[in-house]
């Protein structure tokens, strides 16, 4: 068994026991990356120097009996959407090629303070817009479970790196499913916390009212431990919730006896892969055996979620991406004649097509004459979606569904058809619109050994319960223990 096969907490235990050092673990990650990343292409860049320095500091702390956190010394990776001081951060875009941030985002600071070495920056769909990681300006990432398939997106690099054991855990972001869907495609646990649970300061913004940061790891306990380090109020983020986080691992083994789990009738649609549906239904049955009650619920406005999302997210994005204008940083077209041309060429050349598509869509939705018909209307439908969930949660404690209608699809399969790509997010989008927490958990495999994910949605700030529900299933099955054959 390789060192890198350990879970985060298993490694932490060994670090605590002095059986292995953080430097060894970090070197193991770097060696693993050297071995497999040529095929996986999860990393945009490695920070060997920084990671080893952090590992050394961690080892010194452990020797002094002074670990900074339960995960002190456990090497992780960060989606290239997190600003890391002194380390290039590109958001997988050409427009930020060579951009070196002069500051660390809040979650980055928190992880550094907790002592986790950051092995490198991970690939993603450009500006977090995408569901396959094919939108990266630096080439796609490959799914370690099947290299001709996508690991999902937009946190595809994060998922692939953890699944390929190049890092022990990773952070991603989720705006419409970008943590959960890649987790489902790569047999990982991933959680999108309640909106406002984790700071967005230092996270490159895509859609401000939907973006959330979350952990991705191979086990529920790892996910809980990583979430613990970043779930706190941030005075630098005005949308950060003034709610204290509980101990996420305290009652992790509490089980599901007596819980009511909702099954939304609108989430079992035509066009869903039959193997996915089968495995998800089996998981639901498993929960019944574990003592939970399944309750059918209705979320009647689910079918409008896609349209709502694809008006609101691009609208906010069109504004958030206006700062990439070549004036103060980023790509500037040097051959431009005059200011107007500088803006136009820099942005046309710096942004990829999906990004441009969404900027245009968002600009259109906000423009004079269309604002009420599109943007305001979508915000109203968003209210209805939130109300759907609020009503459902009066009857149940959590809601179960498939994470994705299909398992990992082949690279290139959906790139010609934006709409087909957008449909990948049908199950994950609604909870972003409602600001609710959502988790994806491995619940089985297809006949061709592709992972399938079960989604668990919860009430605001009920992450502890979601993790407990997930753990109850994980305990009875060995899906999480299966490793990608790479």
């Amino acid at each position, binding site marked *: 068994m390789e060192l890198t096969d350990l879970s985060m907490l298993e490694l932490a235990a060994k670090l605590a026991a002095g059986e292995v050092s953080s430097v060894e673990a970090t070197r193991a990650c770097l060696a693993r990356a050297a071995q497999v990343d040529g095929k996986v292409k999860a990393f945009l860049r490695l920070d060997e120097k920084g990671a080893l320095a952090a590992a050394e500091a961690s080892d010194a702390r452990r020797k002094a009996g002074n670990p900074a956190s339960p995960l002190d010394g456990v090497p992780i990776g960060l989606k290239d959407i997190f600003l890391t001081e002194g380390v290039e951060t590109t*958001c997988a875009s050409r427009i930020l090629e060579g951009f070196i941030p002069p500051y660390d985002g809040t979650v980055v600071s928190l992880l550094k303070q907790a002592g986790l070495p950051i092995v490198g920056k991970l690939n993603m769909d450009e500006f977090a817009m995408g569901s396959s990681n094919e939108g990266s300006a630096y080439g796609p990432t490959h799914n370690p479970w099947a290299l001709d398939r996508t690991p999902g997106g937009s946190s595809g690099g994060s998922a692939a790196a953890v699944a390929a054991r190049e890092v022990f855990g990773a952070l991603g972001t989720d705006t419409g499913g970008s943590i959960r869907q890649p987790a489902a495609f790569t047999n990982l646990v991933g959680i999108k916390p309640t909106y406002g649970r984790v700071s967005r300061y230092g996270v490159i913004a895509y859609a401000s009212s939907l973006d959330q940061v979350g952990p991705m790891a191979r086990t529920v306990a790892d996910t809980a431990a990583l979430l613990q380090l970043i779930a706190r109020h941030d005075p630098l983020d005005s949308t950060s919730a003034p709610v204290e986080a509980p101990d996420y691992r305290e009652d992790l083994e509490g089980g599901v006896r007596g819980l009511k789990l909702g099954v939304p009738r609108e989430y079992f649609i035509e066009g869903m892969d039959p193997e996915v549906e089968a495995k998800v239904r089996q998981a639901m049955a498993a929960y019944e055996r574990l003592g939970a009650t399944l309750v059918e619920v209705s979320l009647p406005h689910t079918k409008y979620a896609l349209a709502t999302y694809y008006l609101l997210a691009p609208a906010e994005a069109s504004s958030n991406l206006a700062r990439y204008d070549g*004036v103060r940083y980023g790509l500037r077209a040097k051959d431009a004649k005059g200011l107007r041309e500088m803006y136009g060429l820099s942005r046309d050349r710096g942004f990829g097509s999906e990004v441009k598509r969404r900027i245009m869509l968002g600009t259109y939705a906000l423009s004079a004459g269309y604002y009420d018909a599109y943007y305001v209307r979508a915000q109203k439908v968003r209210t209805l979606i939130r109300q759907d969930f609020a009503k459902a949660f009066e009857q149940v404690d959590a809601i179960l569904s498939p994470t994705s209608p299909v398992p990992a699809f082949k690279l290139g399969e959906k790139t010609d058809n934006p709409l087909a790509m957008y449909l990948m997010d049908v199950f994950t989008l609604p909870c972003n619109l409602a600001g609710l927490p959502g988790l994806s958990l491995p619940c089985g495999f297809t006949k061709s050994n592709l992972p399938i994910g079960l989604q668990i949605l919860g009430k605001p700030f009920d992450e502890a319960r979601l993790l407990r529900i997930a753990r109850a299933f994980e305990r009875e099955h060995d899906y999480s223990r299966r490793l990608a054959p790479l």
Partner: protein
Amino acid sequence: MPLSDFQPVIGLEVHAQLLTKSKIFCGCSTEFGAEPNRNTCPVCLGLPGVLPVLNQRVMEFAVRTGLALGCTIKKTSIWSRKNYFYPDLPKGYQITQFDQPICEWGKLTIDTPEGEKVIRIRRIHMEEDAGKSVHDVAVGESLVDLNRAGVPLLEIVSEPDLRSADEAVEYLKSLRDVLVYLGVNDGNMEEGSFRCDANVSVMRKGETQYGTRVELKNINSFRFIKQAIEYEIGRHVEVIESGGKIDQETRLWDTQRYESRSMRSKEEAHDYRYFPEPDLPPLHVPDALIDQMAQGLPELPRPKLQRFMSQYGLPAYDAKLLCAERPLAEFFEACAQHSKDYKKLSNWFQGELARLLNESGGAVTISTLKFTPAQLAELLTAVEKGTLSNNAAKDVLGEMFRTGKAPDAIIAEKGLAQVSDTGAVEAVVDEILAKNAGEVEKYRAGKKQIFGFFVGQVMKAMKGKGNPTLVNDLLKKKLGD
């Protein structure tokens, strides 16, 4: 039809920089004059990943201003993004308040030749300032300095209730006085911390429809406001009279050519695509804050002016000068506690005190005077009683100004005390007249011009300390006039 058949209609938009220490959404200093981009940080530079956090003092100043201007304070207001591209706008949008501002519907009373007039204030909202660009330093380039980006602004919008350029100037001056009194703005038009745009249109008298309005920008002094508005009114009338139409547009005031010019490159009207700012939750103003701000409101310029006139019996001219700055008015009132000849006191303020302050070139202000109001009052009382001549008092004041020494100490030191004892002066007068019998005869015979000689002799004998009035009166009496 002549100009007099037209009614000008003017509305004013003021942008006032707030006197906070730090910017509206980040902790950078608002101090003026630093080297370019010295007072910047990731937030106000608009780097990727940054987020705004509201400076609570900005909200306090907005509430205070709204209360002073009689506005309704909205318990809930919303931040908006105003989207456009410009090099000095780092995020590509300005955070402002569009459809739900923090204050609405207030008023400001101004004086016009026809009497008092109430100008309605439509709204007041908070927003961030943009940076600055300079265009003539480097060839073919503009240079961008973001020190000013993020400085908090209050935008105060009036209804189009103004009917002349003079009224507009009066409104601006009054508004500026209120803001300076409140301590929220320094009222400096030249430096750009108090800025004004004017919306001007004309309508034929008797009509009910407003004419097409034009926005005038780039006016940074009261003089230019008056010129620009008068010019624009004239231009509108001329165009309409000659059968043309006024285009709704933005024009810049050219301070060299004394004319307004249309701004070029406005091929498309701005579509700012306003939408609610998702990074800032709705702003809730607690009742407790409103009460606190209301309690702490100082007496405002206009009520203070009126009170100075009625309570101290001062003419409008004096009252205006004394109330121009709150510290000055407060110093005056402190003096007035002790010295009841208010007009005289006012004269000293306008005369000697003003002169001394001016001569210091700003080094000394009313707030940094070395002497106290009680001491000034003491000085004037001495003059009133006659123990100090007016001229001597001027000297003493000068010394008080420079050193902060008490007046009686200075008077004693310099031996400036004036003799007003009738007996003492009379004795000297008698002596002089006795010594100069010949002159006395000449005087009584009709040579009235020798009077000055007697005065001089008495003063010389008294070493200049004789109370001149007394000396004059006694001489006249004794010489038999």
